[in-house]
Each structure stands twice: as structure tokens, then as C-alpha cells.
């Protein structure tokens, strides 16, 4: 057994007083500074343009779903939140579309890889960060909901437009 002598605090205990003064003066200074606390949810903060919220699907200015079900977002998604089922468009030169497109928002970590990898610029992270629901199923967003959230993002390059406008090229030649 080792006996350790308790240090004698008598003199050093006095030094706390200066820390008290220092801390209190900081508090007093902040009382007279402008307030930064937001009264959420009545007050909302402003985010930078690059803020990464929930992902969503978008349409172009002609109302076309931009997603062609290439599966790159499903491939790149680190938490595997995205599930796609591809289907074939019979009458359109685009050929392929997402029959099913769901994002499990409970898994999504809002990393933005899907937006970065998308070759069709069809998936974007928006500013929304509020994710609430009463069931888990509610928080697995289906395609309709994702398109509704995403809205319209006009394309600068209209890759499909000349093809969509020309009916002779819509279905392909059959023999």
C-alpha cells in the first residue's frame, strides 16, 4: 500500500477567483453583442448554394424525366440508399427510363455522390434537411415524390430534343 499525501490547496485555491472574473467578463461582453440563435422553426437559417440536403429527381424544361436509369448513382451510393429498376420506353429515342426509383432517406447520408456521378444531370441535392415521418415506409421516397420535390431544372444542352421532335426516329426501324 502506498500512502499519497493530499496536496495542500490553501494558497492555490485562491487563484480560482481570477478565472471567475475572466469568465464572467466574457459572459457580460456577449450579453451586449447581436444574437445569433434562431427561433427554429419560426425562423429559418440561410444556407450556402452548395448546401447538401435531401436528393431529388428533376425534369427538364419540356417536362421530360431526365433520369435514364443508368444505375451510376445506385452504384456509387455509399450507404446503398438508391434502388432502381429500369424499363424500356417503346416510343421514345431515349429508350430507357426508371420504372422504379426509390431513395431510402433513412439510409441517405447526403454526400452528393449521386449528383456528382449523374451523366444526365437528373439527380440533385436540394436545400431541404427536414425529414420527418410516422412510419419508416414513408421515408423511403418513391420516384413520384422525388420528381415532385425536384421540380424543373432547365437543360442548357438539349441532347434529346432534336430526336424527340423527329417522329421518324422515335421507335427505330423494325424488320
Amino acid at each position: 500500500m502506498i500512502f499519497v499525501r493530499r496536496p495542500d490547496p490553501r494558497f492555490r485555491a485562491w487563484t480560482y477567483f481570477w478565472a471567475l472574473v475572466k469568465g464572467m467578463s466574457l459572459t457580460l461582453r456577449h450579453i451586449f453583442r447581436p444574437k445569433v440563435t434562431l427561433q427554429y422553426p419560426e425562423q429559418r437559417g440561410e444556407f450556402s448554394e452548395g448546401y447538401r440536403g435531401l436528393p431529388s429527381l428533376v425534369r427538364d424544361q419540356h417536362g421530360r424525366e431526365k433520369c435514364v436509369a443508368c444505375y451510376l448513382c445506385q452504384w456509387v451510393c455509399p450507404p446503398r440508399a438508391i434502388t432502381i429498376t429500369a424499363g424500356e420506353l417503346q416510343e421514345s429515342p431515349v429508350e430507357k427510363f426508371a420504372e422504379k426509383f426509390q431513395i431510402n432517406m433513412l439510409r441517405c447520408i447526403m454526400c452528393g455522390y449521386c449528383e456528382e456521378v449523374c451523366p444526365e444531370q437528373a439527380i440533385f441535392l436540394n436545400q431541404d434537411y427536414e425529414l420527418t415521418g410516422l412510419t419508416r415506409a414513408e421515408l423511403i421516397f418513391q420516384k413520384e415524390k422525388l420528381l415532385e420535390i425536384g421540380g424543373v431544372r432547365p437543360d442548357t444542352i438539349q441532347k434529346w430534343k432534336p430526336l424527340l421532335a423527329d417522329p421518324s426516329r422515335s421507335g427505330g426501324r423494325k424488320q
Partner: protein
Amino acid sequence: MPKFHLDGDEIEVSPGTTILQAALERNLAVPHYCYHPKLTIVGNCRICLVEVEKAPKLMIACSTVVNDGMVVRTGSPRVLEARRGVMEFLLINHPLDCPICDQAGECLLQEYAVLHGSGVSRFQEEKVKKNKRVVIGPHVLLDEERCILCTRCIRFCQEITGTHEIDLFDRGDRTTIGTFPGRPLENLYSGNVVDICPVGALTSREFRFRSRVWFLKSTPSVCPGCARGCNIWVDTADEQVARLRPRVNEEVNGHWMCDIGRNGFESVNSPDRLLTPLVRREDTLTPSPWLEAVKRSAAGLLRIFQEQGGEAIGWIVSGRLTNEEAFLVGRISSEVLDGSRIIVLDHCEGEDDALLLRRDRTPNRRGVNDLCLGNGGQQMKPAALVSSLKDGSLRALIVLGEDLLEMPQLEGMTRAILAGLDLLVVHDQFLTGTGEVAHVVLPAASFVEIDGTYRNFEGRVQAVRAAKRAPGAGQAGWMFLSLLGKALEADFSYATSQEITRALGAAAPERAAGEGGAG
């Protein structure tokens, strides 16, 4: 034997070897589109250009035969510059469909664009528009814009199948491949043009949009479609079979496989697969645990065996069993249920064709014949089956993966005959007509879900490996037979198919090895 320098190494090759063949043999990555080891050399894609010393211009590696003393460089600055130029020309009219193209991920155009392309396009004009999504046959879809006109498919149809369906049409940058009016690409081997197409011009209609290739897990296996036993890759994604592809084996199938084998897997993905064992209770089939179902079968078999002898018990098998399953059938029928009859059913259709497909549409007829009957098993001809069922000399049947009501060779077979049996045990992937009247139905695993070996018509023993799990409680035949043997208190117990392979190898080494050796 000509000696030459290839990228600084002096190597000796057999006369007539081309530079590309020599380079590929040494694993030098010389890019090539139109060259295919099984097709004639045309040298039209120009991507395999290499520098040959003292030659004024670059030479194409695929058609330049090695001469003594040649000095070849495959990666010099001149070569790289030329490749970049060739890639630029190839990409001028390429539609950049990669997001919707099934070839993406295994496309040589993508690969070489990354490795040898410049990364940016200088092309300002309109691209030439061609037809897309052209149906050129029951299994193949053509996208003319994606085609780089390497003519591999044309040469395949000329030289391998001899059917000449595909050819080049039009001139200049409007050249396309296509089929002649009224002559679609419908030979039995049309799926192979999809495999050999280096780009996404020819794609499979069955695989279309089913999965992206980078999700696929490939398992080496053997096609169960006929007695040839073509080596295949089973590509699975999410426990579903997405496609079958030929696996190169020069001794068996070369680079090819037929469309019947290629598209013969759809039933595996069916949602109607039998998922749980069923046992008849009060005249209805009710779900039951595996062991209970096996015990019930064993008890019934033992009772009939003791009362009426082994002759009253019949095994329905076919060449679809693996060697391991056949071995266990042979052992149980000769060691435990002594004297029980084995009926080997045929699955023959048409005639052998000139390339691969065999008349016998089962992968292991030779192995089953040998292992079921070779060890003292009592055979019964399929023709005698119906009559011995009718006259009551057969009282119990164990049916392994066959539907007796759908077999044309069993004339006069009816549900009533089967329903009159004392015991009918069926091991199948689906609840067939035979299963509906059975006393015990057990869920089976399909050919992509089992381990085992097949012996093809030449006697070559080849391994099959499970690419996925069987749905539900499905179990392979060897597992069922091993459990049944245990319940019958047989003198064996196996935990894996490989154990049985070793056991049957020890029992008959010359048979297990086969004449051609394990593939």
C-alpha cells in the same frame, strides 16, 4: 522458328505467328477490335498499330506476321499518337449512349477511349444519324450508331455458322451493318455475336436493361442444356440470374454456346418456384420442415421395402442429375433398398448439329448411366414403367426432377395411376402435375444453385459451382439423397457435394477422372 524483338525482349515464336498473337501471349496490352482468335484476320479497325523498325509506316499487329530479326515496339510515342488518332476517328460518329447502353462496363470502346483517347472531342459538325434499336433477330438488337464496323459479327456468321445473315450496307460514313430483307439473324448461335461485338452495337434482347454489367457476379459453371456441357459463366445480380455467357474452353465449346443453352435459365428466376417441402396430410399437401418430410419418405420406403421387397420401389432419374446425385441413388438403391428399380428417362430432341448442340438434352447422361446402374443397380426400361405401375408391381416412386405426366415416352401415364401409388416422393423445383398427387414434395435447387460434376458425351467430367442460393428451403439433390440415406440408416453421410465427389473418385478413379480429365 523466327526470333524477334518485342518491346526490348527477344522472343521466339512459331512460324506464321502474328505480332498481335505474340504480344497477347506475353500479356502485352495491344488494343484490338476486329481481331478475334477464332475468326479470320481482316485488319480493318486499325487500333492495333505498332512500330516495326525499318518499316516506313506503322504496321497493324494483327495481320503482320513475325519475321526473323524484326524489332517491334508496341508503346512508342508514334504508336500512342496513332492510337489516339484512331480513337478520335472511331468516336466521331459515336452517339455517347453509355448511360443507356447495355455494353457499358464491358465495352472496348469505353476502355480504349480511357486508355488511348485524348479525352476531348474536336469534332464540330453534326454526327451522322443512323437507326437505333433495330430488331435483327429473335435474340439480337442492333444499334447502327454504336457500330464501329469491325465486322466480327459478319465473319462469325460466315465462318462459324455459315449462315451469312449479316453484311455491310451503304458507303462511307453511312456504312452500317444489317440483315437482308426477310432474312433475320435467327440461327441457333446468334447470341454469340452479342458476345463478340466489342461495342454496344449488338446487344441481347433477353439481357436488355436487366442489370448493369458491373453489378454482375460471374461464377464458372457448365451449361446443362445438352450433352456437350459447354463451359459457361453464370452472371448473377441480387440472387437472380441475369445471363449466361460462354466460357472459353478450346476442348469443349471454344468461344461459343447455343441460344437454347444461353436462354435456358428463365425458370430459375421464376416466382413460382417451390419454396418449402410439402407433405400430404388428410389428402392435402401442407408445408412441413425438411427433416420431417425426409423421415416420412424414409418410413414409407422402409415399410414397402420390408413388406414387398426392393422390386416394388422405383427411382425416376435422368441425365440432369449430377454425378454426385447419381452416385447416391446408386448407393441407396443397391445398399439399402436392395433391388429397387432405376428408370433413366431420356430428354432427346432433334439431331446433333454440326457445331455444339447435341440431340441428348441432358448434361450428364453418361455419368448417370454409369453411376446409377454401374454399381449393381437394377434398371427398368421407361417403356415398362407404366405397365408395372398399372399391374401394381411398383408400389413406390422417388422422382428426381421429372414430371412424369409431361413425358411423351411414357405412353398411357395418367394422374390416376400416380395417385394410386402407396408412396410418391417428388424432388423438384416446381409443383408439377406429378407433385400434386405426391405424398411428399421436396423443393429442389436449380443448376445454378448446386455443386457437382457432369460428364459430357465425350466422357469429360466438368465441375458445376453454385452461383447463388436456392430460393426458400430449396436443396440440391445430393443433400436430399444424403438426408434420405441417413434416415434409411445407410452406411454414409455427406456434408458437401465435394465430399461425394471425392468418395466417388475413390470408388472408381478411372470413371471420376473421365477420359478427358476434369475440366
